């Protein structure tokens, strides 16, 4: 097997809350290859952003502990010094954030913010940097690059800002882009444009992309592989077709069932009982989801849930999925296409 672009092995990221560490990312292993979009989905607070920031080591080092390995092109970035890490940030691994207005420095022109990255990672002269910045702005579909170069973030619309953000991210031709909910703040029409843009750039440059989102439709549209997270853990992972057509874990299935869509009109949406436990109250033992499917007996959950490969490349945590069913209006169990055994 060839080398992965990014290989996260048993990563745990813990935050210090009142002198104790709590793992927001718990024993997560993910691989990302070049030329591939891996989507991470899950409810708010399940550790998606924590994971994303871990890769580039952007957490506040005093209040965060990271264990495990993050191999980027075979090199463990967790072992790097901060100065060495800076050689990777932006050059090899770039990030796109959710809220383009706050993620951009309000007092710096767009151009300067793009050039900043260039000035740390390339030997380009000032003029060359400017040319490159305009070129990038053009590339991300900004109609008047020269003008935008001189503008400040607040002078741009939401979609334009996010384009600028992408321009910053791709400035040094990174091999990996981590996009943390890049379209959540945007209107649907703009979202579609940004996703198209992201995808075309990914394809053109052959990059690996980690796309974090909670919108399953977005995942379905652009991702190659999907990682479903719940309470800091990966509970299911597989190709996009596997996950959407043969979802296994009760959580994945519930999520898919709770989305109102424009294409299939259901009368009732599925409701997942309970709420995501907060970081301090996370059950650290057993299946973390079991509290939200009370009708599955405790004994049917694994003691220490593992990821099981149910289909090739399709992993599920815990075996409780085998006992999960939806009820229809009459209260009958509806069974899906579930891997009964392996």
């Amino acid at each position: 097997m060839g080398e992965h672009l990014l290989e996260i092995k048993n990563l745990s990221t813990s935050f210090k809350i009142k002198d104790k560490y709590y793992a927001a990312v718990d024993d997560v292993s993910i691989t990302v290859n070049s030329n591939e979009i891996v989507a991470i989905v899950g409810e708010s607070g399940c550790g998606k952003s924590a994971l994303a920031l871990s890769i580039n080591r952007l957490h506040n080092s005093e209040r965060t502990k990271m264990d495990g390995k993050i191999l980027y092109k075979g090199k463990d970035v967790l072992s790097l010094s901060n100065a060495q890490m800076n050689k990777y940030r932006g050059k090899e691994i770039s990030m796109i954030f959710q809220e383009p207005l706050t993620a951009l420095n309000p007092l710096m022109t767009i151009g300067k913010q793009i050039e900043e990255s260039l000035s740390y990672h390339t030997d380009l002269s000032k003029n060359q940097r400017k040319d490159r910045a305009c070129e990038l702005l053009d590339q991300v579909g900004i109609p008047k690059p020269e003008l935008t170069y001189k503008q400040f973030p607040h002078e741009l619309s939401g979609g334009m800002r996010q384009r600028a953000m992408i321009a910053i991210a791709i400035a040094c031709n990174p091999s990996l882009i981590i996009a943390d909910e890049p379209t959540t703040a945007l209107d649907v029409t703009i979202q579609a444009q940004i996703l198209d843009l992201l995808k075309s750039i990914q394809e053109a440059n052959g990059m690996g992309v980690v796309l974090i989102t909670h919108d399953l439709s977005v995942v379905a549209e652009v991702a190659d592989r999907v990682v479903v997270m719940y309470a800091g853990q990966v509970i299911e992972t597989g190709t996009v077709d596997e996950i959407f057509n043969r979802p296994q874990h009760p959580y994945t299935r519930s999520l898919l069932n709770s989305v109102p869509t424009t294409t299939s009109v259901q009368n009732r949406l599925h409701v997942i009982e309970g709420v995501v436990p907060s970081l301090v109250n996370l059950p650290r033992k057993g299946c973390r989801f079991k509290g939200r499917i009370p009708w599955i007996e405790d004994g049917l959950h694994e003691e220490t849930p593992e990821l099981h490969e149910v289909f090739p490349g399709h992993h599920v945590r815990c075996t409780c999925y085998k006992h999960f069913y939806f009820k229809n209006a009459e209260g009958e169990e509806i069974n899906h296409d579930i891997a009964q055994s392996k």
Partner: protein
Amino acid sequence: MTLLRVNNLKVHFPVKGGFFKRVVGHVKAVDDVSFELQAGETYGLVGESGSGKSTTGKAIMGLNKITSGEVHFGGKDLASLSRSEFKPYKKDIQMIFQDPYSSLNPKKRLIDIISEPIRNFERMSPTEERRMVQEYLSKVGLPSDAIFKYPHEFSGGQRQRIGIARALTLKPKLIIADEPVSALDVSVQAQVLNFLQDLQKEFNLTYLFIGHDLGVIRHMCTRMGVMYRGRLVEEGTSDEIYENPQHIYTKRLIAAIPDIRPEYREQSVNFRRDVAKEYKESYNTYFDKDGRAFDLQPVSNTHRVALP
């Protein structure tokens, strides 16, 4: 039966500037909008951010000053009423807010939050009041011992239900729901949407449902209007709008919705591209030279589109 009729509603906000901070222009947040709500239906209002959806809702509620136009409710034009005359109608129209965090006063216990409207309109003894609050809490599925808790002790979905309970206490006829679920996670969103549907049945409510998630609107609404820059560009039943959009803006909006079925990926990308092209090409036929949409023209009994 028509419960609410909005006629030529305009809400303009002054823009100040110049040497003496005089009014130099207007933001036409809502610019000549007309629609009707039938009793018991859910009417959806969609459009991109800033298109004037909330302003429309607030204008009906009396939270915004109406520049011109009429809001007929129960045979009266609310827009022409004075403050005191308006008061009795307040009971009949209630609002659910987008942000379940900011719409509940963080310093108040639930009992005070939910009983606030009761106190405004009725005199009740404290025990009666408490009983009533508990009744409504149980209706929205919250334990009755929650009355002495503060809003921050509840999750987003629960808080949204608290807000709904508060609105229900006055037994309103019309509820304006301004993006009631857009701040919520999908799982919680489902909970609230189901719940709203249940309540509608139970109390025979009429909803004006404002949203930008087209999936949610489709799920909830029987009829809907599409807004663009303060104007309605298309109005019809949900099926008509989704299956047979006529206005280029509606088309673009529908096309932009990502498809949850991965196998349609290619198809939707291509479709979107085509629509985008069409949008560019035919923009001038759908909008006048100021970029303003035309007035609505009926294309069928239920379907109206802003065509020249």
